[in-house]
């Protein structure tokens, strides 16, 4: 139970990869605070953690809204210790070919997937700097490196997250705070269920392992990066994609 006594904040923890990460960190001993955009989502997180015997709860936070982040962190630190593990997982897609991509689609994806990472990281750094220990783990995507038609906004945001993470790592690593990305490939979640059969088959054709990934297979890498054993890994992006992209 290497994360015993530490609070982990996981954004977008209602479903999919975020849920798996929240539960895995909980299994490693962390107290887990998961965020959702709705009360219903927060209740789902709380119930899921309780069922799994994990200390923690869900809370409402719109990561695209600075005021909501501030309010959420205030609520968190009133109930728990300052988070020493932050997993920026919350993300949305608004796919469209560039010639059709609207300004709103661009802004919404950049706000939720990139600006939130800056704001949340900034908000937790003080506590981590004081503790001389911290782990910031940002969920990127294989498409940050590969590019993907119809995902100009999403690819830009995720590539931005990786660049931000390297900069953060250089600033804070001498305080015992590491910053890394985990870049999932094609994982079996609601986000990838949006793809049609033809798109799905096209993806499977380029995945050497011949299958979709499981959210738990992303969560286990996040748990490694959160551990003391990963103290010398910083500014790195670890790909979890079944071999579909090897850099």
């Amino acid at each position, binding site marked *: 139970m290497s994360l015993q006594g530490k609070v982990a904040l996981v954004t977008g923890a209602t479903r999919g990869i975020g849920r798996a990460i929240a539960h895995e960190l909980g299994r490693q001993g962390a107290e887990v605070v998961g965020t959702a955009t709705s009360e219903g989502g927060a209740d789902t997180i709380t119930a899921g953690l309780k069922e799994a015997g994990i200390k923690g709860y869900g809370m409402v936070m719109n990561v695209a809204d600075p005021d909501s982040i501030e309010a959420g962190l205030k609520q968190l630190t009133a109930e728990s210790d300052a988070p020493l593990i932050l997993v920026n997982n919350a993300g949305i897609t608004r796919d469209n070919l560039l010639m059709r991509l609207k300004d709103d689609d661009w802004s919404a994806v950049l706000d939720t997937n990139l600006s939130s990472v800056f704001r949340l990281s900034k908000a937790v750094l*003080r506590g981590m*700097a004081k503790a001389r220990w911290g782990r910031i783990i940002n969920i990127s995507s294989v498409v940050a490196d590969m590019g993907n038609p119809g995902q100009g906004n999403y690819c830009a945001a995720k590539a931005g997250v990786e660049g931000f993470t390297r900069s953060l790592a250089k*600033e*804070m690593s*001498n*305080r015992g705070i590491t910053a890394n990305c985990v870049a999932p490939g094609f994982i079996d979640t609601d986000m990838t269920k949006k793809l049609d059969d033809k798109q799905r088959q096209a993806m499977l054709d380029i995945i050497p392992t011949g299958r979709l990934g499981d959210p738990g297979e992303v969560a286990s890498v996040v748990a490694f990066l959160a551990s003391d054993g990963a103290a010398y890994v910083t500014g790195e992006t670890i790909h979890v994609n079944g071999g579909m992209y090897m850099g």
Partner: protein
Amino acid sequence: MSTVEERVKKIVCEQLGVKESEVQNTSSFVEDLGADSLDTVELVMALEEEFETEIPDEEAEKLGTVQDAIDYIVAHT
């Protein structure tokens, strides 16, 4: 109750990991006490917390020495 000067010096020692004997009022955080840019940001944050005040960035940049910090706190709290 400690004086502002004592409290400031205590925080400087804690944040920069220096001995109390090394900290003079004229000591420069960067040149004499070995602070890097991140140290100075953390130092200002610690002062803000200790004295329950907010030090704007443009003011924080001017706090080069221990005495600067003491003067600022005395004038603003």
